[in-house]
Structure formats: structure tokens, C-alpha cells
């Protein structure tokens, strides 16, 4: 589906910009600037406001990024459970640093705060799906699901 079609689906929802943005990102993993412009038009708000929303929330990105978004929780409970070693292993495995995407466009690596799964720390999510008690040894298996 094109972003135009996606946005049109939410046009009648009062305040539905955020829902529309989520839907666009499910399709293309980020918010292209043209999609933000289109959103402004459809929801009848200034482009500055649509852009302001797109840049306010940490789950949205106006920059292109890898298709599968890996977010590692760095809040204190995950941190003390060993998130740092997981991060180092992730960077090595993917060959990129936090904030970057792999050259083949498959993965983007980001940090997040608590994702509310603190019973099984450390936690990472891929496209929102949580993985529990992750360790460097488990990474290859997790990444393989998205290759």
C-alpha cells in the first residue's frame, strides 16, 4: 500500500495522525518527508505541526532506516542485568553502531527506555516484538528470524 492510501484510511479519525504514522512505519519503517506533507494536508494541519509530531515521538523517524528495527532497552533494570554486553555483541554482529542501519537495509539499531517487560531482563524488541533474557549467545538466533 502506498503512504497516500494508508493516510486516507485514517483521515476520518479525530487526532488520528499518530495512528497513521504507525501504519506508515509498519509498511516502510520510517516517515518519508512527503508522507508527512501528505498527512498535514489530509488532517488539515500546518506542515510544521505534522512534522512536529513526527519528530516528537521516539518511535518515529523522519530519516530512512533499516527495515527491521532493533531496540535494546537501556533502563536501569535491563542495564544491571547485562544490557551493555548485549549491545556490544549486537554492534559486532551487525557491524554497525547504535543509531545506524546495516548496509543491506535489513536492520536498524536503536536504544530505548523500558519497554515494560522487566520480569525477563535484558530485553530487546524487533519491530515491537519483545525478546526476553537476551544474551550475546542468543542474538544470532533472533536475527536469523528476520534475514
Amino acid at each position, binding site marked *: 500500500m502506498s503512504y497516500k492510501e494508508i493516510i486516507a484510511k485514517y483521515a476520518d479519525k*479525530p*487526532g*488520528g*495522525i*499518530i*495512528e497513521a*504514522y*504507525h501504519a506508515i512505519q509498519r509498511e516502510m519503517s520510517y516517515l518519508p518527508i512527503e508522507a508527512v506533507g501528505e498527512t498535514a494536508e489530509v*488532517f488539515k*494541519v500546518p506542515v510544521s*505541526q505534522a512534522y*512536529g*509530531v513526527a519528530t*516528537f*515521538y*521516539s*518511535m*518515529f523517524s523522519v530519516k530512512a532506516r533499516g527495515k527491521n528495527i532493533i531496540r535494546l532497552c537501556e*533502563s*536501569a*533494570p535491563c*542495564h*544491571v542485568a547485562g544490557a551493555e554486553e548485549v549491545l556490544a555483541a549486537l554492534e559486532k554482529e551487525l557491524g554497525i553502531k547504535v543509531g545506524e542501519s546495516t548496509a543491506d537495509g535489513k536492520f536498524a539499531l536503536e536504544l*530505548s*527506555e*523500558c*519497554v*515494560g*517487560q*522487566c*520480569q525477563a*531482563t535484558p530485553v530487546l*524488541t524487533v519491530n*515491537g*516484538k*519483545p525478546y526476553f533474557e537476551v544474551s550475546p549467545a542468543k542474538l544470532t538466533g533472533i536475527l536469523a528470524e528476520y534475514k
Partner: protein
Amino acid sequence: MAEEMRIVLRNYGKIDPLKIDDYIAQGGYKSLEKARSMDKKALMDEVKKSNLRGRGGAGFNCGMKWSFAASAQADQKYVVCNADEGEPGTYKDRLIMEGDPHTLIEGMAVCAYAIGATKGYIYLRGEYLFLVETLETAIAQAKEKGFLKDFDLEVRSGAGAYVCGEETALIESIEGKRGEPRFKPPYPPNEGLWSKPTIVNNVETYANIPVILEKGADWYAGIGVASYPGTKVLTLTGDVVNRTFFEVPTDTTIRDVVFTFGGGVRDGKRFKAVQIGGTSGAFIPESLLDTRVAFDDMNAIGATLGSGATFVMDETRDIVDVVTRIMKFFEHESCGKCTPCREGTARMHELMEKINEGQGSDKDTALLNKLGNVMTYSCLCGLGQASPAPALTTIKHFAADYQAKMK
């Protein structure tokens, strides 16, 4: 011995959350029926009398809040559930929604009847998108069975902004805007979503309602501490043996939470501190562990109950380092709308970094104290107001940790 008591988690793990008949078999939706047979004022008086206070952090009397919205005149009113649950170390609302979504829906429908609202929203944090289906299925089932009548309930998603847990920021976000807190007053019960009277309550708050109506306000008011009765769900993380959750009466002490329920500190190490209420919570030393997990008891020791997140640290943890990371969190999450917070969180982070790197002196802790106090009373919303607490309480209770890092 302290024992668990399950009210909001009464059905957790016992019923199939996606089968409304399971919920009904446990007496589900009987309280809604009972509420609708009651006079609205009598209903709100009952909720007031139970002394149920908000479980989202601010501890406001629930029935009282409802009565403000009930008496406001408007053509439309809204019932909103705060399921933003952004406080690090907290997952209690997820447990309720995952395990027993109908108890939330029933609680919200009671509120809708009480205040005269026909539209409701569950504002679900973006990290819980996998729960949208559970909630929407449950809503559809309740509608199909005719329980919701004219009450229309919709799920809306957040997108990863901690400040959106603040009720007016949350309202802005449902309206499709940046989640920046509003100036108060007016308060949401008078002017909230799309400027209409709006009740915002936490998931755990709503989940108490069906049980209060079933067993009566007096029963509820008699559980735990009288000034903050009922139970609280606590989620234990960090260096504790049982990294899990418990629902306990509010007269349970922190000591019991950490050592009885939590099983004590991991790996045979000694206890150093516990931070309760999430990132902005105070760091509590051993000497204050006999405090009860009730709103005012916690306030009396300069702490907060907050979301009930309970983060345990053992003797090897570097408190100054932990606090430095926390200040980075607040610098990042500050929405930037007001100066004391936008600038203050950045400066506090800077000062903590300096101390953490061994470059600090007593002057810096004095500055932190001064700046922190100013922020506590001058920031626009609770984020800025509460953000200095970890620094202020550790400077007070763990002075030796700071001294050890001074140049």
C-alpha cells in the same frame, strides 16, 4: 507474615483473557449492572467512600475526581484510561490488560455511566502495540454481549514519549499533537480532551472498581492503610532474588517487599538501596525500610510510591553512576516546554557527569541541591518537578558514595 492479596490481579492466569464467558463466570460485568441500577450520586459516593486513590502516581481520590466531571455541564464527556506505563521498571498495567482486559473495560464503563460519558479511549503506550488486538477483541465481545450499551471505547497508541503519561500531555497526544503538558488549571475533569470534561485514570485504578462495587466500599476501605487503602501491584527488578511481581495490601513494609516477597538480595550480597516508583523515585536506604507502601507513608520519608516499580541495588552498585544515567534519561525525556526543566535537567546531568568522572567537589553537590529544589517547585509538570529526586535523595542518604568520587 505478609501475604499477597489479589484484587486487580484476581483473575490473572486463571481465566482466558480472550473469553468473555470466563470473565462472566467469575462474576464479571455484574458490578456494571449493579452500578447502572444505582443513582449516580450514590454510586460516586460509594467510590469516594472506598477511598480508592489513583494508582498512576498522583494518588487523587477517584470518586471525588469523577464527581467533578459529573457536575460539569457539556454535550460530550470522555473517559480515558492511562495505559502509557512509561515508568522504567513497571509492567503492572500490562499484566492487567494482558491477563484480564475485561476488568479494565468494566471499570471504565462504570465511570462512563457515573459521569455521563458515551466515548472512551484507552491510551496504550507504543511499546504495547501487541496488546491492541487483545483489547479490541475484549471491547468487541463486551459490545456484542450488550454490556457497553451506548459507551463507545477505542484504543489509541502512544509512540515512545515518557512525558505522555502525564495526563494533559496524554490528552494532547490523543488529539494527534506533540505530547506537551498543558498549563493547569483547568483540570481535565472540567476541560480535557477536545476541551470537554474528561476523566483520566490509571489501568490499576479502573481495575479496582468492579471489586469495590461487588464487595462494598467499607470492605475496600478496611484493607491496608486507611489513608490509601487497598492493594498495590509492585514489580521487582534489579539485584533481587525474585524478579517478579506481587499485589500486596498497602500496609506491607518495603522490608517485606524486598526480603519476604523478593527473597532478599541476589548472590548473597548485601542490600544497599531500593528505588521505588520508577526513575524519579527516591533512593531509600536500609534505615527506612520499615515504611509501608502507601502514598502518604512514602511521602513522609521524602519518597513516592509512584507506579510501584521497585528497583533493588546491592552493595556493589555505583549509586552515583546510576543517578548520572537517570539524569541523562530526564534530559532526554524533558519535552522542552518550560525552561526550568529543559535547562535544569541538562545542567543536573552535566553536574552528575562531572562528579561521576571524578572531577566534582562539594560545590557541585551544593549546586545540585539548589537547582534541584528550584526545579521541584518551578517546573510546569511532574516530570520536571520529580526529576531531581534521585540526585537529592542520594546526596542525602548516600553522601559517602559521592565523597568517594570527589577530586
